[in-house]
């Protein structure tokens, strides 16, 4: 049960973690994340890194779409900008790994600002189309700017190095990717305790009212695009070091839809949403493979025969959550938490 949580100061009231239970769980989570690489095998570590990269990008998209109300289908293209930036900086300038990732975010942010310019005039579906158009233009650039992107065959990226240690395996990269993602999620959570974050929410709820309140729309919308693209760029940079090859086909348009779906399934406009959504979208297809595997002894040739069924089940699960939990997976977690706020007096 939740008791003794009365706040005496505004600062305490605005804290990210307001109760000791929350703090304890956060410590447990941190410990689990820190110990996971020593327990998990290569496959689960690979998936953990992939989830972390996807969480970073989905969190960025959530700032733009969930909190500012600007629909974007260009997230994959921004990730690609980040990935190419890392490949170029690493290959041509040999700059350090973490600096490259930061630069990837900044370059993607700059491109994001450009792509975001139409957002002052158009929104909703129209903006979605504008971002699709931008991602096709970027795809053209990736394919034809051969001196930088290597054209269709792409570019290879050397393993990341940190303090002389080569980070080539998922085990090694985990210790960089997960903390960077955690920092980014923390940054996003903090963002919405500031004027900037609240301005984003005001724009989402009613942009004209926001302007009347003194929020310069262009500046804040572009800022939202920049932040979102920064997240995508950093995620793309980590992706490049993780997969070590970047081609124009590394980030197809379907990836943008993947991230939008992740944010919606997870819960728009919540910090927890993109984390759960990205984990759901990445892990459920993998977990469903275990179901196929378990059916192996009873179902001859299960792998080939049931794989199409698996994709249908995955699609059906997404629809199921949208219909029965339109607020996303984050809402389920919130409900579970509310249950324990009153437990054991009301169950």
């Amino acid at each position, binding site marked *: 049960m939740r008791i003794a949580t009365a706040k005496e100061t505004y600062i305490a009231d605005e804290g990210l973690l307001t109760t000791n239970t929350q703090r304890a769980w956060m410590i447990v989570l941190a410990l689990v994340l820190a110990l996971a690489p020593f327990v*998990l*095998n*290569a*496959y*689960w570590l*690979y*998936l953990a890194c*992939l989830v972390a990269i996807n969480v970073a990008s989905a969190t960025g998209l959530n700032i733009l779409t969930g909190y500012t109300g600007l629909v974007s289908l260009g997230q994959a293209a921004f990730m690609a900008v980040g990935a190419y930036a890392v490949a170029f900086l690493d290959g041509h300038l040999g700059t350090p790994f973490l600096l490259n990732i930061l630069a990837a975010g900044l370059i993607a942010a700059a491109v994001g600002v450009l792509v975001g310019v139409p957002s002052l005039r158009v929104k909703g579906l129209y903006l979605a189309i504008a971002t699709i158009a931008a991602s096709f233009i970027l795809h053209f650039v990736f*394919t034809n700017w051969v001196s930088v992107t290597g*054209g*269709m*065959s*792409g570019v*290879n990226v050397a*393993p990341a190095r940190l303090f002389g240690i080569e980070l*080539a395996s*998922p085990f090694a990269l985990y210790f960089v990717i997960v903390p960077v993602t955690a920092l980014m999620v923390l940054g996003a959570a903090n963002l919405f305790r500031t004027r900037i974050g609240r301005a984003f929410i005001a724009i989402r709820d009613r942009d004209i009212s926001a302007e009347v309140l003194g929020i310069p729309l262009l500046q804040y919308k572009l800022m939202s695009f920049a932040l979102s693209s920064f997240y995508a760029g950093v995620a793309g940079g980590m992706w490049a070091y993780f*997969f*070590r*090859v970047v*081609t*124009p*086909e*590394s980030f197809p348009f379907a990836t943008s839809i993947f991230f939008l779906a992740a944010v919606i399934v997870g819960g728009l406009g919540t910090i927890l949403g993109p984390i759960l959504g990205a984990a759901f979208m990445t892990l459920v*297809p*993998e*977990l469903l*493979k*275990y179901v*196929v595997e378990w059916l192996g002894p009873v179902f001859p*040739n299960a*792998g*080939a025969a049931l*794989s*199409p069924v*698996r*994709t249908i089940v995955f699609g059906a699960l997404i629809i199921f959550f949208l219909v029965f939990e339109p607020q996303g997976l984050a809402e389920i977690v919130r409900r579970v938490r509310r249950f324990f706020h009153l437990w054991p007096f009301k169950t």
Partner: protein
Amino acid sequence: MTDLNRRDILGLAATAGLASTFFSPLTAFADEKELVIGGSIPLTGVFAFAGVAIEAGISDFVKITNEAGGVAGRKLRLAYEDTAYKVDQSVAVFNKLTTQNDIHLYYGDSTGFAKTINEELNRRGTILMAGASFGSELNNPEKYPFQFMAGPDYVEMIAILLEYIAKEQKGAKIVFVNSDTEFGRDPIEASVKRAKEMGLEVVGQIVTPPTAVDVSTEILKLRRANPDFTIFHGYVLAPLPEFLSQAKQLGLKSRFMGTFWSMDNSLWANVGAPADGFMGVMPYRYYYDTAPDAPILEKIRKLRPTYQATGYMQGFLTAMLMTEAARRTLQAGKALDAKNLKAALNTIKDFDTGGIIGVPISIPGNSVPVGRIYSYSAADKQMKPASDWISLKK
């Protein structure tokens, strides 16, 4: 724990399920006497048509081999999972299968995967990989020391077509039509150069989106160029039938040709009359080929009485060649590591594939540069040989 309610049971079931999911890989290690072929195979997604056939081909090869006693005393086993033709999923499958099994042979599903996993293959040094990609970039033993392909790469496929054209018609005019993808662009630059060197005239290059439907403007370009031969690459089927039927309506004299992935017989059987005369390069014999020197095809027909797609032969032969490399390594008493496996693969010389390829083959590098020209007969609903087997000289 006598008063378990429904929720507790559900909770326990979920925990048990998750626990078995996480920890089962640690307990499922392979038997010492096994030789496992791992596979990232696309059973769903855009390449599923090939993946399903490839899986059938490899599975049948495994079955036939095990019935004949296995490989140097070891039973063969295929461990595979669906990748949906996505690189990140292919890598996930690779990581999963190599954690669960002791894998030394691997089948990969795309050029993207082959490029992505290459560094990991080099780092591990324990796995020999081949796959569905004939990307010319992979045909480089220095950069891809532990990979190979069971056929000619895309540049070599077009070179085989060009050899045929040069023999048929000296100084013929050629147009290349390719999709705007990595797959489509792969051989074009090198092939244009090669065509010119062979005295053939390249009168045009057309690039289309991979899923183009309306090709009327491209047909007009083709009419202006008026080639003797049009070579398509980077497609499976669409938009080839559209090209063929519109070209026939306009009375173009050009003959149309394709590469391996657009050469499946069942694809063209559904197209009907416009497909008549479509030609292309095929590294393997078709399922229905009753040539006397192809006993393995007879066996395959007994196992599977209905037509098997070209992907089946590709999977079957890939498994055959990687297994042969393993057999030679084991028989020489060497360790099953990538270096030994690749070296053993490269000792394959004048090897009889049981008739899948009509001539004895050698693998000096990463590819098998052999193929034959087939032409589709709409009347017989079959691809028929239009040339003898063509082996490219390095």
